[in-house]
């Protein structure tokens, strides 16, 4: 490597730069260029970062789902579903409302352990394929999705079509004879509870790690 140029001195004076001071390692021109670029970057960041945060903020915003009364205990039986309308987002009028299907816990079909939150089973109508609204067909005892042919059995497990996990559920609790519907949670194919996910995101196997839930929206602790 004979043609390699010898290493340059760190000092500008050694490099014969006009107007260089003794002991100066960065030329004033280079310092000036660097400072101007830095000031420009600070100015651009000063408007770009707040705007970006402004747009991304809602991702990290905490949203509480309030408990809503949906009817007296006597209105719900264990062998069929009763539709009820709840409000998911109160700020957008009718498009913020959603249907849930409710019934009593039925030990003949329900296998999951009982606790305070599943005396009544509340099934979400968002299809777990891509979020279309499913409806319960009484004669078939199935939930059917109109969009892409997803079919779920009586407890909401997938029996056909493209959905990747059983229908989401809502916590329910009973207070003074009234049934209340609370936050939503997702279930895997064993109906184990998980923090709420969006449709299309499987929860079996590595699915729960590939599709993280919102950090600000978790299932209730110890459930």
């Amino acid at each position, binding site marked *: 490597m004979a043609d390699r140029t010898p290493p340059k001195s760190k000092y500008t004076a050694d490099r014969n730069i006009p107007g260089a001071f003794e002991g100066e390692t960065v030329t004033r021109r280079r310092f000036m260029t660097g400072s101007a670029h830095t000031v420009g970057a600070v100015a651009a960041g000063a408007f770009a970062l707040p705007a970006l945060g402004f747009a991304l903020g809602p991702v990290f915003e905490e949203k509480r789902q309030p408990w809503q009364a949906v009817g007296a205990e006597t209105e719900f039986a264990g062998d069929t579903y009763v539709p009820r309308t709840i409000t998911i987002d109160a700020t957008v009028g009718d*498009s*913020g409302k959603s249907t849930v299907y409710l019934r009593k816990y039925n030990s003949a079909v329900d296998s999951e352990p009982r606790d305070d939150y599943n005396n009544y089973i509340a099934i979400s109508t968002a299809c777990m394929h891509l979020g279309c609204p499913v409806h319960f067909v009484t004669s078939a005892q199935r939930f059917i999705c109109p969009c892409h042919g997803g079919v779920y059995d009586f407890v909401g497990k997938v029996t056909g079509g493209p959905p990747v996990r059983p229908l989401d559920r809502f916590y329910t609790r009973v207070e003074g004879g009234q049934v209340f519907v609370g936050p939503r949670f997702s279930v895997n194919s064993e109906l184990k509870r998980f923090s709420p996910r969006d449709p299309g995101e499987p929860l079996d196997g590595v699915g729960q790690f590939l599709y993280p839930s919102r950090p600000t929206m978790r299932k209730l602790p110890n459930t």
Partner: protein
Amino acid sequence: MAKLKLPVPPVPPQLKPLPKRPGKVYGPQTPIEHAGEAAATAVGWIDERTSLSGGARWMMFRKVPKGTNWFYTLGSATMFSFLSQAVTGVFLAMYYVPSSTRAYESIRTINNDVFLGEFVHGMHKWGSSMMVILIFLHMGRTFFFGAYKYPRELNWVIGVALLILTMTMSFTGYLLPFDQRSYWASIVGVNINGTGPLVGPYLSDFLRAGPNFGATTLSRFYAIHMLLVPGAIAALMGFHLFLVARLGTTAPPWVRAKSSEQLREEKVSS
């Protein structure tokens, strides 16, 4: 008798006759003639200060290869469909209200009450499909004519970015009428985005501005649809066109260059 030549008094420059112009013998004289020259004068005034005419000539009067045919107009057709979308979109925005409680009503007003409203809305609605069809035809032309090869790879890449941005426009625009079809189609679309592993759930939240379709989802889609993406499309389209002018267009693959007999390899080596 010899002619006596009297000395001519010096004329002040203001009173000197104008130099001759080509065309008319004395240049414009009457006010009507001056008015006829107004456009040339205005263009000349701007060009003298910007030298833009050279750039315009460079852009408009290019050499094109032999065999250039109607397929080469698909890119311009895509651009004009974008311009049509931009113009009709601006005028639709004068009546549209991006609020989840009033959007549907404002679209109904446009369609039923506004003069030519249904027509302009229809142009925007059907024109969007037209733009997507044209962009794919243009892409197919580029692919089958081999026009993506060196040195035009970057233009292909920009074209793909433009295709993705056009798809973004289609997706965000679909929600704006806010009827049942657009609402559920957008829910399905956002959930398709969410099926991307790891980043998918966050992308869905960004698009919806939260865990559910809420008050700001529609205005967010509206802002993306009419401010963010059109600006990016216009800028990239400008760069796309610049590269087309810079690199020139390709001949169709069936047109072969006539090679000189002297340059044939076997002739040169012998």
